[in-house]
C-alpha cells in the first residue's frame, strides 16, 4: 500500500526474526494446535463440563517430550476462559512437579494460588497438617450449585507420584470423586507407565481417563507443519519480503531430504540455528545450504569433538585402554595396566613418542578422568590406591577409531598401533 511506509531490508529482517523467535523460542500458542483435533475437543468438553455444569473430573495427558501437551492445554484453557460462564467462576491452580518437589511446598502453593484465608500477602501460616485440613475443609464445604469449580493442573505428574505417601494426589483425587466442590485434576506427563507409579488407593480414585498425544502425521503433513511454522503471517508489513521468504521456505523444505528432519526435538533448534545464524541483511532468504549446515552443527558427535582436543599422550592412553578392552573382553582395568600397555608400545613400536615419566602419564590419565571419558567402577570408594583403582572406558571401539582418523597430525606409528589387532 502506498500509505504504508516501506521498511528497509534490515528492518524487515529484524522484524521477521522477532516474529519467528517469538514463535519458536518463546513458544507462543498457535491459534489451533495442528493435528490434535480429537484430543482438543475431548479436553475442552471435559473442562466445560466442570466449569459450566459442575462435574468433577480427572484426566491424564500423556505424550513424549515435545509432543505438545502444554501447548494443547494452553489452547484449551484459553478457549475455556473465553466462555462467559467460565471466566467468572473458574479458579485455576497450576502446579509443577519440578518446582513443588514436596507435598508441603505444593500445599502452600495451592493455598497461595487460591487466596485462602490463611494467606497474608505471600506468607502462608500454619503447619502442613493445618494447611491440609483447612484446604480440604474449604473444598468439602461446597457443592455443585454454590461453589466455584477449581481446575488443578499438575505438570510433570510423575514427579508428584514420588512424594511421600502420595498425599497430595490422594487428597485431590479423593475430592474429585466425592460430591463436593467441582474439581478437575489434569495431569501432564511424559511417562507412559505413569499409572504403575500410583498407589492402589490413588489409582482407584483416578478416573483412568487418558489422552494420548502420539503424533500421527505422515511425512508430507509434517513438512507442511514445519513450513507453516516458518512462514511469515499474511499481515507482515512488507508483503514483498514476506512473499520472497515464504517462497524460499516452501521450495527448500520440500526438497530437503528426510534425514534433516530426523528427530522432532531437533527441528526447533535446527530452524533457529539456520535462520538466526545464517540469515542476515545480505542473505535474506532461506537456502538449502542453511538447513544442511544447521543440521550438521546440531548432530555433531560431542564425544568425537572432545577427543579431537586431547594431547597425543592422552590419545595413546585411550588406545591402550581400547586394546585392553579388546584383549580382556570389556573387563575393568586400572592405571597400572594401561601404563604397562603404553610402555610396551613405547619400547617396541614407537619412533615419535618418547618415554614419559610415570607421574606425567598419571596426570594425563587424571585429565581423562575429569573429562569423564574413563570412569571408576565403584565411584567413591577410595580405599584402593589411585593407580590400582578399577576403571572402565566410556568410549566405543568405533568412536575411538573415528577420532583417530580425524585427529590433526596424528603420528603414523600411533595409528598403526591402534589398527593392529595384537598390541
Amino acid at each position: 500500500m502506498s500509505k504504508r511506509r516501506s521498511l528497509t531490508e534490515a528492518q524487515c529482517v529484524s522484524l521477521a526474526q522477532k516474529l519467528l523467535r517469538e514463535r519458536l523460542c518463546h513458544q507462543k500458542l498457535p491459534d489451533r494446535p495442528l493435528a490434535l483435533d480429537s484430543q482438543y475437543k475431548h479436553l475442552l468438553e471435559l473442562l466445560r463440563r466442570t466449569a459450566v455444569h459442575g462435574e468433577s473430573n480427572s484426566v491424564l495427558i500423556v505424550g513424549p517430550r515435545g509432543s505438545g501437551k502444554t501447548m494443547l492445554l494452553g489452547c484449551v484453557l484459553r478457549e475455556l476462559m473465553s466462555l462467559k460462564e467460565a471466566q467468572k467462576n473458574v479458579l485455576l491452580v497450576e502446579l509443577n512437579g519440578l518446582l513443588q518437589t514436596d507435598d508441603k511446598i505444593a500445599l502452600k502453593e495451592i493455598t497461595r494460588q487460591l487466596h485462602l484465608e490463611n494467606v497474608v500477602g505471600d506468607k502462608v501460616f500454619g503447619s502442613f497438617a493445618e494447611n491440609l485440613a483447612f484446604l480440604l475443609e474449604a473444598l468439602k464445604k461446597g457443592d455443585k450449585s454454590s461453589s466455584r469449580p477449581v481446575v488443578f493442573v499438575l505438570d510433570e505428574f510423575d514427579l508428584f507420584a514420588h512424594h511421600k505417601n502420595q498425599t497430595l494426589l490422594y487428597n485431590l483425587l479423593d475430592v474429585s470423586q466425592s460430591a463436593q466442590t467441582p474439581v478437575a485434576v489434569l495431569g501432564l506427563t511424559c511417562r507412559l507407565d505413569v499409572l504403575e507409579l500410583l498407589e492402589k488407593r490413588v489409582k482407584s480414585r483416578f478416573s483412568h481417563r487418558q489422552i494420548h498425544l502420539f503424533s500421527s502425521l505422515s511425512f508430507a503433513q509434517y513438512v507442511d507443519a514445519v513450513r507453516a511454522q516458518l512462514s511469515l503471517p499474511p499481515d507482515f508489513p512488507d508483503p514483498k519480503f514476506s512473499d520472497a521468504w515464504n517462497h524460499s521456505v516452501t521450495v527448500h523444505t520440500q526438497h530437503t531430504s528426510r534425514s534433516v528432519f530426523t528427530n522432532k526435538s531437533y527441528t526447533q533448534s535446527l530452524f533457529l540455528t539456520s535462520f538466526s545464524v545464517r540469515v542476515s541483511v545480505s542473505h535474506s532468504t532461506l537456502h538449502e545450504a542453511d538447513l544442511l549446515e544447521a543440521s550438521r552443527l546440531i548432530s555433531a558427535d560431542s564425544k568425537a569433538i572432545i577427543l579431537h582436543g586431547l594431547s597425543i599422550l592422552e590419545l595413546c592412553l585411550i588406545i591402550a585402554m581400547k586394546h585392553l578392552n579388546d584383549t580382556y573382553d570389556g573387563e575393568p582395568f586400572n592405571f597400572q595396566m594401561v601404563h604397562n600397555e603404553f610402555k610396551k608400545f613405547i619400547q617396541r613400536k614407537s619412533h615419535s613418542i618418547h618415554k614419559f615419566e610415570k607421574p606425567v602419564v598419571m596426570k594425563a590419565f587424571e585429565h581423562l578422568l575429569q573429562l569423564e571419558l574413563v570412569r571408576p567402577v565403584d565411584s567413591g570408594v577410595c580405599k584402593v590406591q589411585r593407580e590400582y583403582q578399577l576403571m572402565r572406558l566410556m568410549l566405543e571401539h568405533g568412536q575411538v577409531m573415528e577420532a583417530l582418523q580425524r585427529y590433526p597430525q596424528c603420528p603414523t606409528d600411533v595409528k598403526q598401533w591402534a589398527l593392529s589387532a595384537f598390541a
Partner: protein
Amino acid sequence: MFSSSSLPIQPLCIRIIQPSNLIKRMSVTLQCPGYPEDTLRSLAERLPCRETQLATLLALMGQPDQYSYPSVFIYGHRATGKSHVVLSIMKDLELPHASVDCVECVSSGLLFHQVLSAFFGPDAAALLPRCPSLSDFVRLYKQMSSNSPATQTRYIILDRAERMRDMDFSLLPALLRLQELVNDNVTVILLSEIVWEKFRPNTGCFEPLLFHFPDYSKAELVQILSWDHHPSYTPELYASYINILLGVFFSVCRDLRELRHLAVLNFSKFCEPLEKGEAKESDIHKLWKNIEPHLQRAMQTVYLREVSSVQWEQQQMDEKEATTLRVLSAHAHIELPYYSKFLLIAAYLASFNPARTDRRFFLKSHGKIRKTNFLKKHEKTSNHLLGPKPFPLDRLMAIFYSVVDSRVAPTASVFSQISSLVTLQLLSQVGHDDQLDSPKYKCSVSLDFILAISRCVCVCVRLLDLLALSLVIQSQVVRQERSLFTAVSNLHLL
C-alpha cells in the same frame, strides 16, 4: 587478558598486536544489528582465534529485545575461552546478566541468591526465605519481573555446570525451561567441559541448544601465546621461544593456561645466554640447547606441581649447576628409622609375593625343592598389575626377621613403628579396627620408593637380589622353570 587464571605470574607488559587484516575480517563477519559497531570491533580484537564462535553466539542471541532460545549449552575443553568469551560479550555490550560459578554453590539457595541480586538488587535477594526451594525462587522471580519487566534479554550464566548434576535433581531441568516457568525474557547459558549426554536426566528434559568451542590448534596456540611477549625483546624471539616450548610440551598438554604459566616461568632462563652475551637473538640452536634440559626438568617438577612456581624461580636464580630440586612428594628425602625401612621392605615383599613362595625365598633351609611351577598362571599377570594384596601381621614379622641382618627382639618399639608407618600412609590397614589379634595390612608404596629406601640403607646384596627376583617373576620373563630354579639356588638362600 586471561582473567580467569589465578596463577602467580610476574607482571607482564602486554602489547596488543593489531594486524590490519584481522580488523578487515572482523567488519565483514560481525554484522549484528542492535549492538554498537565499535564495541563489537574492540570485542573481536580482544578475543583472538575465537571470531567464529563470537559471531555465532551473537547471532544466536539476536537483538537485545528479541526472545532467545531458553537454554544454551556450551561445551569444550578447559581453557578454550568459553567463560572468557561469554563474559566479555556480557560486559562489553552491557547486557543484564547473572554469572554464577556452580562450584561455589554448595546449596541451591546460593545460586538463587546470586541470580536475584544480580537482576533485581540485593533487596530482592533478601526476600528469599532461609532455605529457599526452587518454588520460592520462581515465585519471587515472577513477582520481581512483573514489577520490572525485561526490556532486554536477561542471561543467567552457569559456569562449571557439571556440578549441577550433584545438586537437587529438579534444579537442572527447571533451569533449562526457566523462560517458560517465569514467563520472562530470560536465557540460561550453561558452560561445561563434559558433554551433554552425561547431563540428561532419566525421564528427559527440555533440550538446550548445543554449541561447542573447538580446541586451539598448534598455530593458534602460538598466536595467542605470542601476545604477551616481553617488551625488551623482539616478538620473533618470543615466537621462536614459544615454538620450542610447544615442541617439548605440546604432546603432553594442550591446556592454554598451563602452557602460558610454563612460558612465563621459563622465559628468563631462555634469555640468560642473551643477557650474558654468549649468543645473539638469531642463534636459535644455541638457545634451544640451553633451554631444552631445563624444560624437561620443568615437566617433571613444575608441570606436576611437585614444586611451586616461587621455588622454581628461586632455583633458577640460585643455582649455577644442576642440583636436584627438593620435591614435594616423598620420593627422595623421606627419613625413616632404621628398622622402619626394613619393615617397609618386608611389607612390600609380603604384598607382592604370594604366600606360597615365602618358604622358598626366606627360609635358609627348607628341604626338598619340588620342580613345580611355583607361580600359578593367573598370578603371573596379576601380581604387579592388580595392586598389593593384604597380609597378616605374623607374615610381616616372619619376613622381617629373615630380612634384617642383625638379631632383633620383638619389643614394643618395633611394633609401634608399624603403627607409625600406617599413620604415614606408607602401609594401610585392611579390615576392621577391632580385629586386634591379627590385623591385616597392605603396602601402599611403589617399587621406586622401595628401591630408593633400600639404596639408602646399606643393604647387602642378598636383599637386592630378593627384590630383583621378585621383579623378575613379576615381569613375566620367566622362560623355564629350570632356569629359575638355578637362579634361586644361586642366591645362597637354599
